[in-house]
């Protein structure tokens, strides 16, 4: 190789490096390396070559907890350092079941006139604001003052994962210790409420729930109707799927819940004439415990006066159940009956008749959720 050729190569290399550096600087000046707009607040990792939000929670060589977390302690304590009572680091105070960012006009403010504080749709871990005695036909209101939850998705404790496994699996479900991160992906993933596509250790095949566009709706004055703002879908026959962006907020959460509670899910059965496909309750699933089941696939909009052809049966799991925890209770009927508390758990055990956990995350006391849809049955 001649000297001239080598000099030419070196010159070209220098020019190339200069061009690359220039482009890099230009990108920098034009703001090409800015931080990402938060989908889930600080959960979303920054873009760019030198993110540092990782340092808020992790240490690479000196972590004191699983997943290189800096601090010892439970995941629950970790999450509640921001999502705890008072919301020191988030508008979503999951511990107290409060959403501090309810700025959508027309939403109830939980009785507070100068605040935008409202109840979380999913209830709370310690307290919740669900009006569990709301007598209105189609809605469930929000309480001004939260109440202690009586049943919840218990965290950090070995408990039964009811109905997990394929239909026909022996037993009521395996034991499992649930953490916030079992269901939520702290790094963000574009799913609705950063839910994991496959809940950790669920054994499910995965079911993504697409995120909704901003502004997100985390709460409602109508805990039964899962549509944005509690409104009815424009076309319950086609919507969803074919949902209207910005109107439909839930994309069949029952499929997602069934990643863990698989044996509970009854999507459809023999449709009755003129009614939604509710025949699941008349179909033997083949499972020894979860044999006949209320259908629970759908998108949360609930009315029994749906038109013929309303093929999405509107009974999402979260139509009746609050995900984090509910202040509903099972005190028994007005005549002193205690039917609910004498119904055994799926594993055959009977709890104390006054065991409030009988509430099973329902949004109404006793069997009030039945009445919301089956109001004509006296």
């Amino acid at each position, binding site marked *: *190789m001649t*000297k001239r050729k*080598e000099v030419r190569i*070196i010159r070209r*290399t*220098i020019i190339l*490096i200069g061009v*690359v*550096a220039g482009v*890099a*600087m230009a*990108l*920098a*000046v034009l703001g090409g*390396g*800015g*931080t990402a707009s938060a989908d889930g*607040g*600080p959960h979303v990792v920054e873009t*760019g*070559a*030198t993110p*540092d*939000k990782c*340092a*808020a929670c992790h*240490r*690479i060589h000196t972590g*004191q907890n699983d997943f290189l977390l*800096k*601090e*010892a*302690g*439970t995941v629950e*304590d*970790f999450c*509640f*350092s*921001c999502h*705890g*009572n*008072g*919301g*020191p*680091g*988030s*508008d979503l105070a999951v511990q*107290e079941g*409060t959403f*501090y960012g309810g*700025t959508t006009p027309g939403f109830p403010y939980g009785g*507070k006139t*100068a*605040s*935008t*504080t409202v109840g979380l749709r999913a209830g709370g871990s310690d307290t919740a604001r669900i009006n569990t005695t709301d007598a209105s036909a189609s809605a469930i209101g929000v309480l*001004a*003052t*939260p*109440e202690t939850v009586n049943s919840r998705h218990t965290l950090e404790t070995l408990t039964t994962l009811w109905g997990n496994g394929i239909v026909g699996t022996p037993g009521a479900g395996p034991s499992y210790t649930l953490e916030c991160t079992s269901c939520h992906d702290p790094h963000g993933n574009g799913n609705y409420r950063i839910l994991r596509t496959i809940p950790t250790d669920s054994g499910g095949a995965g079911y993504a729930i697409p995120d909704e566009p901003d502004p997100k709706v985390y709460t409602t004055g109508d805990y039964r109707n899962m549509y944005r703002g509690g409104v009815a879908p424009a076309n319950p026959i086609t919507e969803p799927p074919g949902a209207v962006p910005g109107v439909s907020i839930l994309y069949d959460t029952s499929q997602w819940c069934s990643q863990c509670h698989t044996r509970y899910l009854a999507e459809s059965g023999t449709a009755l004439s003129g009614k939604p496909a509710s025949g699941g309750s008349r179909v033997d699933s083949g499972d020894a415990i979860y044999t006949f089941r209320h259908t629970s696939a759908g998108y949360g909009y609930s009315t029994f006066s749906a038109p013929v052809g309303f093929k999405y049966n509107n009974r999402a799991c979260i139509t009746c159940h609050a995900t984090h925890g509910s202040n509903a209770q099972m005190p028994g009927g007005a005549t002193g009956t205690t039917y609910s508390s004498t119904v055994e758990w799926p594993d055959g055990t009977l709890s104390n008749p006054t065991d409030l956990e009988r509430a099973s995350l329902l949004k109404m006391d006793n069997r009030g959720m039945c009445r919301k849809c089956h109001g004509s049955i006296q």
Partner: protein
Amino acid sequence: MSTTDWPQQPGGLPDGGGPSAGGRLRPFVKMAIALLLLAALGWVLLLSAQYCETKQPPSIVPPPVNRLFDKLSFEYVDSINGLQNPMGVAVGQNGRVYVTETGGERMIHVYNSLRQEVGSFAPPDTEALGRVPVYVAVSPNGDVYVSDRDAAAIYIFSPDGVAQGKVAPPKGFEDWHPLGLTFDPAGNLYVADVTPEKHRVIVLDPEGKLKLNFGSQGEEDGQFWFPNGMAVDSQGRIFVADSNNGRMQAFDKDGKFLFKISRGMSSGDLSIPRGIAIDSEDRLLIADTSRAAVQAYHISESAGSDPQSAAVEFLGGFSGDAGSGVSFQFPNGLALDGQGQIYVVDRANNRVQVWKY
């Protein structure tokens, strides 16, 4: 002349390893040039990335280190136990310690300087689940101010816990969500407001009139994302724990941004700062909830006004010792008693730890 005409060195050179006097460069020279160019490219890219992150001109030469103070040493003293989800702490007249709790009965507990509980109180006409006292501050005259984001209120109590009313939000700020509180020596009240989309600092004079407000929600310098604890020094400089941005920001008395202590993994960097206090010798202490530590800094007198001088010197910190059972779990509020003692809310351990320095 061909390379084969060069005499071989003892032991021999690698193939093609001759000098370039005849028009060829030695491979190691080429390699050195290539490495230098690569290093230069990497340096430029690094500066580009740094600019992307900070939007500030890249700093090529590190700032001079101002070592006026010896490193501090810290010693564990005692704990106040039996609390439920405590969040805020303040020290008032006669060494009284006020602690807010957000769990259980959600009271404001009062302790004497010997850390014996002498009473507790709560906002009037509220039940436990209807209140969430988060932060607490004591005014120069000894009155106790307590923030409750849930109630969108700042309650006022006498030193003995007798309710005195509420702070009225200034006009235009009626939708506030008060969180962190502090006073300056003149009795001005500083409120960290986390109203959705309006995160800011509001300053009220002793008559309760709006004196100053600054900041907005965001990540740029001068903006906030869940401001929590605040402190004001003798110069009137305002130090704000910009919690979710993982930094402490300092402002002058007019709310103009001065400097910051950033998030990071190095010694002295922050993660999620919450409680903050400054002592009479301009030593700033910050409780970092996810770092599980309290860190101390010396703030130079000219910090923020002299760009050639280091604004901050990291003096060390403490995170307890897991072996001795005094480690932190998600510390939050922090207060100084003026006697060299630090009160740190150890939230997930349901206690307040007392250290001295």
